[in-house]
């Protein structure tokens, strides 16, 4: 007899409610990290809305400036961050199952893919500087450099966090409590989520 049936028969509660309780819904990672994530999302929300408003006030200049960007570079960065997030998610699944070596290997792969983002972004900046465009060129490029560099720094921080998580995993830190591992992973996914909004806003629309 299943646990659901046994408990249901003892107390008059619906089976679906019992299933809900047995699922034991929990927030992955530490609560402090989630408040940090919410704070970061809020800051970027202000940037995104501000960018959209600035574009409406200077639409012709924004259209002309966007034409100078490399949409392929933006696409490559999107694919790199999404794929890197995949390997981080798989790494979390591996550590859930206690597979330490697999988890570390997946983290390493995710970081290698994240390096693609770093290289492409640095190349983009170098390209723009080489054609005489910088943060003071116009409002579009001021916002472009501010927002994308701010995001770039978050990617770097995320990579440092994941590297530390990898080191701790090798030392056996996540055998009982993996909330620290999940926290770092969720931060990385947040960075990915921000780029998912940033990419169409700056490169496509």
């Amino acid at each position, binding site marked *: 007899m299943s646990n659901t049936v046994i408990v249901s028969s003892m107390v008059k509660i619906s089976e679906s409610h019992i299933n809900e309780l047995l699922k034991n819904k929990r927030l992955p990672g530490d609560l402090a990290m989630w408040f940090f994530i919410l704070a970061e999302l809020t800051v970027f929300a202000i940037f995104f809305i501000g960018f959209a408003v600035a574009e409406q006030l200077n639409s012709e200049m924004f259209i002309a400036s966007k034409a100078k960007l490399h949409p392929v570079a933006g696409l490559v960065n999107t694919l790199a961050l999404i794929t890197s997030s995949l390997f981080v998610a798989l790494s979390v699944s591996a550590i859930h199952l206690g597979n330490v070596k697999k988890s570390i290997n997946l983290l390493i792969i995710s970081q290698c893919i994240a390096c693609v983002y770093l290289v492409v972004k640095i190349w983009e900046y170098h390209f723009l500087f080489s054609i005489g465009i910088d943060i003071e060129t116009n409002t579009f490029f001021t916002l472009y450099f501010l927002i994308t560099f701010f995001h770039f720094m978050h990617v770097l921080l995320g990579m440092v966090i994941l590297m530390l998580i990898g080191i701790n995993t090798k030392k056996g830190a996540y055998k009982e409590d993996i909330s620290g591992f999940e926290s770092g992973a969720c931060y990385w996914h947040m960075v*990915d989520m921000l780029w998912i909004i940033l990419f169409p806003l700056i490169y496509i629309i």
Partner: protein
Amino acid sequence: MLTTKQTIMSWLFLIILTLVSVYAGKVLDNNLVFITTVLLIVFLKGQQITDIFMELRDAPRMWRLLLLSYVFIIPTAICAIYLF
């Protein structure tokens, strides 16, 4: 806990949505349709990251709704700014 297959399928969905949003820019002439399509795709991608990658599908409802509302409200606000 999600399976490897679920995670990989979600990744594949994200890749396809990304390529569709880039392609939409080349084929859609109508500005309203184009911007709405791209920002709808942003929401769908955000939902995948929230529910699958962040594993909030099985988290307390409040946190899941908080993140999902972010990827709904921000693209909607951007859409409203561009179109009105």
